[in-house]
């Protein structure tokens, strides 16, 4: 949805506004060994709510399908068969076949690979760049570095996300890598804003002050002491951004600006479905359904992450 567009910046708002208290609860200064414990705590937090459990299961399922696509898919997703064009769903082809006789189920399975590649690629790139710049800005609060980084964030955020991504892909040329690059370019400022707000409140914490007094360098301070402690709100935003990136990838492929034609994406399958709306409704129904379940999984996971990681949320649940 390209209303998803707005939605995502709103979800990033959630951690932003509750920033102060959250950082106070979340950070536990200590050696890296404790980070493992924190990772387990995150999983336990997600698992503690029914939303989180269901979301995690769906997401794991999709990741599994994407990784093992060549074992899961019953047919070759590129194999055409003119005789089986527009075949309705049957035991041989559970989701039917498309306008070239290709098996839709197999294409959906391979499409999940495209989807996951873009969603993970974009988010990993954006978190890396955004969090680094956000911490740098927060660390240099009030000086020229801070202002220029905020200005850059605000400049990019002042565009409707999907349109900026569209324009960038349009000039770079349609390809999956360009989709990841373009989407990352529109996404990292959202992570950056969160990281900056979190860093600002963290800079007042005694252990950071102590580190500074002991002469810990900026990079080490950011990497070892700030970054691990601002990850909770980033992770909550991550859940929601995964959903958005799946939509955007599908959207760009829908417009023919994503993966190149023989390649499978949920978006370009839907486009072909729209073109065959009178003859082959299964070309619309099954891709929509799969996209819907995938999105629901990530939405639930992000709800679970919020419940698990945000003490406010937990309190309001009972």
């Amino acid at each position, binding site marked *: *949805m*390209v*209303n*998803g*567009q*707005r*939605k995502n*910046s*709103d979800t990033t708002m959630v951690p932003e506004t509750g920033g102060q208290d959250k950082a106070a609860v979340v950070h536990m200064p200590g050696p890296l060994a404790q980070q493992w414990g924190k990772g387990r705590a995150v999983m336990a937090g997600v698992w503690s709510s029914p939303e989180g459990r269901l979301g995690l299961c769906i997401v794991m399922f999709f990741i599994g399908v994407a990784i093992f696509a060549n074992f899961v898919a019953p047919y070759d997703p590129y194999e055409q068969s003119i005789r089986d064009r527009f075949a309705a769903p049957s035991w041989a082809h559970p989701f039917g076949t498309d306008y070239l006789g290709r098996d839709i189920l197999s294409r959906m399975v391979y499409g999940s690979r495209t989807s996951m590649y873009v969603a993970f690629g974009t988010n990993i790139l954006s978190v890396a760049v955004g969090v680094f710049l956000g911490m740098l800005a927060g660390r240099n609060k009030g000086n020229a570095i801070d202002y220029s980084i905020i*200005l*850059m964030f*605000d*400049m*990019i955020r*002042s*565009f*409707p*996300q*999907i*349109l*900026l991504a*569209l*324009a*960038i892909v*349009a*000039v*770079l*040329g349609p390809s999956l890598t360009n989709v990841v690059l373009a989407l990352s370019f529109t996404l990292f400022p959202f992570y950056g804003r969160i990281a900056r707000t979190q860093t600002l409140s963290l800079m007042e914490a005694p252990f950071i002050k102590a580190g500074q007094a002991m002469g810990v360098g900026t990079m080490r301070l950011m990497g070892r002491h700030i970054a691990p402690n601002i990850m909770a709100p980033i992770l909550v935003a991550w859940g929601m951004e995964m*959903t958005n990136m799946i*939509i955007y990838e*599908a*959207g760009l492929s*829908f*417009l*023919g*600006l994503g993966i190149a034609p023989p390649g499978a994406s949920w978006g370009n399958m*839907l486009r072909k*479905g*729209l073109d065959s*709306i*009178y003859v082959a*409704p299964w070309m*619309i*129904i099954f891709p*929509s359904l799969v*996209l*819907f*379940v995938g*999105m*629901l999984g990530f*939405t*639930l996971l992000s*709800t679970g992450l919020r419940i698990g990681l945000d003490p406010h949320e937990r309190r*309001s649940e009972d």
Partner: protein
Amino acid sequence: MLLYTIKRLLWMIPTLMGGLFLVFSLTYLMPGDPASAMLGPTATQAKIDAMHIRLGLDLPIYERYWKFLTSALQGDLGVSIWTGHEVSALIGSVLPKTAILAVSTIAFASLFGIGLGALAAINKGGIIDKICNYGSLLNLAIPSFVAAILLMMFFGVWWQIFPIMGAGEGEGFWSAVHHLVLPVIAMSTGWAAFMLRIQRETMIETLGSDYIRTARSFGAPRWHIVYRYALKNSIIPSITILGMGLGALFGGAVFVEIIFNRQGLGQLIVQSIYKRDLPIVQGGVLVAMVLFVITNIIADLIVAWVDPRTRLK
């Protein structure tokens, strides 16, 4: 309030200039030379050079940016590569169509979102709350373009209740409304679900606050408390979303416009991308950005005006 407004507007200037620079630099990402693309493969070098001068491509980059900036501020967004039409006139002709779509979507979404969110908050934990909660979760998981295709298939192709093509132009008011129904529903479900969740959350918080308890102990009637005190105070975050949504939908309408074959800003941009008509793409993205920034600022100013606490931040 005045100080806040001035600060907000002043920050807008570097943001917009940066945004303009971003749009401007798109030209550089584009492989190939626009002049030779316009003139075709048979053009002589002299003709290409002449075109360079006409397009201002021979100037140094900062001068080109300055020219782009000043002419954009005067409403001149260049001309289409293929047809030679004024880009600003093209955009001006489609903008009202997108505006109708965006405004009706946001109106529809806020009506349902705020209303149901408030209803869910009042019935917290009850059956209506549960239905709203799960319903909004499901709605959040349907992208607008998937919703659009599904609605089109069910209501346009199978049951043929609503038209599936165009905007019903020149067929009178009711035809236009008839054509609006499916696109508006497709685009507003996600926004409505989102607003519902925010509205519910804020309203529950407001209903639990001290002044509501005091009002209750004074014996104020329930509808009075809900409507006068709780709803009015909890509507503020929804205003912010409303502003963001309205701005975003000018660009976000692209899928629905394409699926339902409606003329609009998004459709113009995408078709220009297919034709590699960069000036229109640039101009369209620019206009969408400016609208996005302006609606956001208006929403922020309304919020600051309604709720003095936000001015202090």
